[in-house]
């Protein structure tokens, strides 16, 4: 039976349509009048994201599907969509002055950010594994191109190539996993797949286990979980800093959205085994990420390893399955502000034409740039998990969810890891305020857009840290409405 327009209920897909549509509009306008400043493209991108955000906030959650069951409009999907849109909007603000400074200002940049966001939105709300896959590919391919955006730059090209090769490899695993799960259940719709698996029982089906293992490997690559992380430091360091900022948040939000939905809707009957597997990955990811971060002497690469470790913390709550979903959501919201903010400071301070920011460059900046330095200190404290920041509340809920689900030892490992991470995060703060600069850095003037982005990030970190109640209630209510 073919659906009619009314069954499709396109109204619910407005966020995706608005975001992708704005991207196409940017391409058309750029193709027609390609002269002068590209500021307008950034504003148009922000407009598209604002429409999508308004639509997500206003329509609210309901456990219904649209597009003939392919997209879920439930709380889980809408909430992750909201985090993703906020992250994308901040990424646009962060990039505006940076691209001009580096003389790579082009309209396509914003179009690609929008297409990546549209792919991520499809992943977050998809109730169908094929849709998840196509969304993932749209997100990934946009990110490969964005990594190569500074085309004259060898590091950028190398990053893109590494990302492309390993990303394609991961996609193959993911796709094979989908095929096996389809073989096990006879459907690609997540809800029906969950029902089929529950009815069949999970004891004997090798197709199910093979499929789950391959999908976890595929998602593990995208989330840069250890031992699938080897691409991440080089790609994060080589890609343009504004792209790294977007990538480190957006791909994590989208992949965790899909992972949480898979765990809650489809794999709940298989929980004992998937949880054990994910717990192992979480321990490896946190520990290896933190230990390698200790050895770094450059801020961008340090933040790359820190992002790996952060994915490990989030995975601790994902292990708890349904219990941890709200904690994952809340932490990702805080992480979006914190990580984007930290990368924005790196981008503001790094030398022109150079993505790197060695530790020695930070010396003395605490007093030469008091506001920006204070913001970076705030983000680093939040990444550590210090009280009064969103990082503290977030980690409390992440690890609390693990304890609640009976994974106490995992929570203890995570706390110990946070203690280790304090060494390298706080060392940066110490260098900024306590050390004299040997060769003072020639600082660029930060533009207005970057200032706005930094202010929003800092405000988010402080507000969510001081009064987390509202956001936590929102997260809890959102994940309570899951299509199943």
């Amino acid at each position, binding site marked *: 039976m073919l659906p009619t327009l009314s069954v499709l209920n396109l109204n619910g897909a407005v966020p995706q349509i608005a975001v992708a549509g704005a991207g196409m509009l940017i391409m*058309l306008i750029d193709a027609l009048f390609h002269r002068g400043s590209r500021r307008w493209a950034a504003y148009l991108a922000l407009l598209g994201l604002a429409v999508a955000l308004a639509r997500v906030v206003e329509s609210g959650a309901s456990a219904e599907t649209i597009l003939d069951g392919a997209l879920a409009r439930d709380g889980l999907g809408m909430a992750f969509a909201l985090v993703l849109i906020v992250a994308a909007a901040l990424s646009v603000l962060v990039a505006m002055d940076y691209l001009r400074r580096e003389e790579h200002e082009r309209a396509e940049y914003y179009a690609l950010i929008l297409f990546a966001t549209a792919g991520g939105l499809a992943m977050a709300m998809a109730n169908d594994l094929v849709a998840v896959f196509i969304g993932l590919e749209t997100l990934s391919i946009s990110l490969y191109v964005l990594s190569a955006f500074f085309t004259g730059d060898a590091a950028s090209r190398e990053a893109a190539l590494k990302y492309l090769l390993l990303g394609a490899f991961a996609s193959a695993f993911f796709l094979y996993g989908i095929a096996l799960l389809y073989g096990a259940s006879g459907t690609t719709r997540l809800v029906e797949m969950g029902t089929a698996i529950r009815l069949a029982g999970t004891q004997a089906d090798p197709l199910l286990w093979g499929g789950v293992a391959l999908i976890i490997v595929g998602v593990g690559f995208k989330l840069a979980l250890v031992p699938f992380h080897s691409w991440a430091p080089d790609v994060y360091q080589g890609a343009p800093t504004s792209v790294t900022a977007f990538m480190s948040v957006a791909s994590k939000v989208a992949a965790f959205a899909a992972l949480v939905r898979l765990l809650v809707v489809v794999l709940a009957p298989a929980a004992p085994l998937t949880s054990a597997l994910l717990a192992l990955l979480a321990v490896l990811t946190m520990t290896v990420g933190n230990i390698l971060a200790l050895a770094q002497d450059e801020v961008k690469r340090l933040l790359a390893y820190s992002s790996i470790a952060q994915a490990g913390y989030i995975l601790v709550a994902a292990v708890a399955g349904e219990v941890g979903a709200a904690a994952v959501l809340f932490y990702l919201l805080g992480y979006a502000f914190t990580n984007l903010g930290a990368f924005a400071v790196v981008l503001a301070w790094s030398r022109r034409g150079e993505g790197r920011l060695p530790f020695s460059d930070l010396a003395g900046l605490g007093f030469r740039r008091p506001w920006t330095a204070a913001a970076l200190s705030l983000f680093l404290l939040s990444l550590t998990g210090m009280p009064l920041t969103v990082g503290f509340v977030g980690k409390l809920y992440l690890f609390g969810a693990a304890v609640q689900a009976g994974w106490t030892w995992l929570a203890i490992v995570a706390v110990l890891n946070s203690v280790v991470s304090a060494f390298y995060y706080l060392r940066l703060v110490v260098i900024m305020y306590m050390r004299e600069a040997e060769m003072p850095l020639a600082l660029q003037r930060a533009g207005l857009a970057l200032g706005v982005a930094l202010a929003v990030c800092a405000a988010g970190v402080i507000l969510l840290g001081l009064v987390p109640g509202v956001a936590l209630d929102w997260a809890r209510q959102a994940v309570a409405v899951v299509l199943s």
Partner: protein
Amino acid sequence: MVPADFLPILVLIIVAVGMSAIAIALSALLGPHKSTPTKLMPYESGMVPVGDARLRFSIRFFVVAILFILFDVEAIFFYPWAVYFRRLGLFALIQIVVFVGILFVGYFYAWRKGALEWE
């Protein structure tokens, strides 16, 4: 169609591969082997070759090849719709129009950006 309908194609492949294999094998076995430097040149008693035969291709070929693949895939997506478009009805038509419309944005972009010009 059943796989047996493809038997002629299989036979054709076997014949084609077999004939070329036989031709190469026979000339290698029966032909006289008296190679001199002159005989080994690409054009015996013709022009003296200059440089390497393995040239680096222009990047323009790559752009053309990529565009070809994308529109090739697009055409593949048309096929299941085109075969049964009467049964699929108006809604499917709208879908195809949207699909083509999105790709047309890319086509227009490529055209205006000069990707289709050879210079």
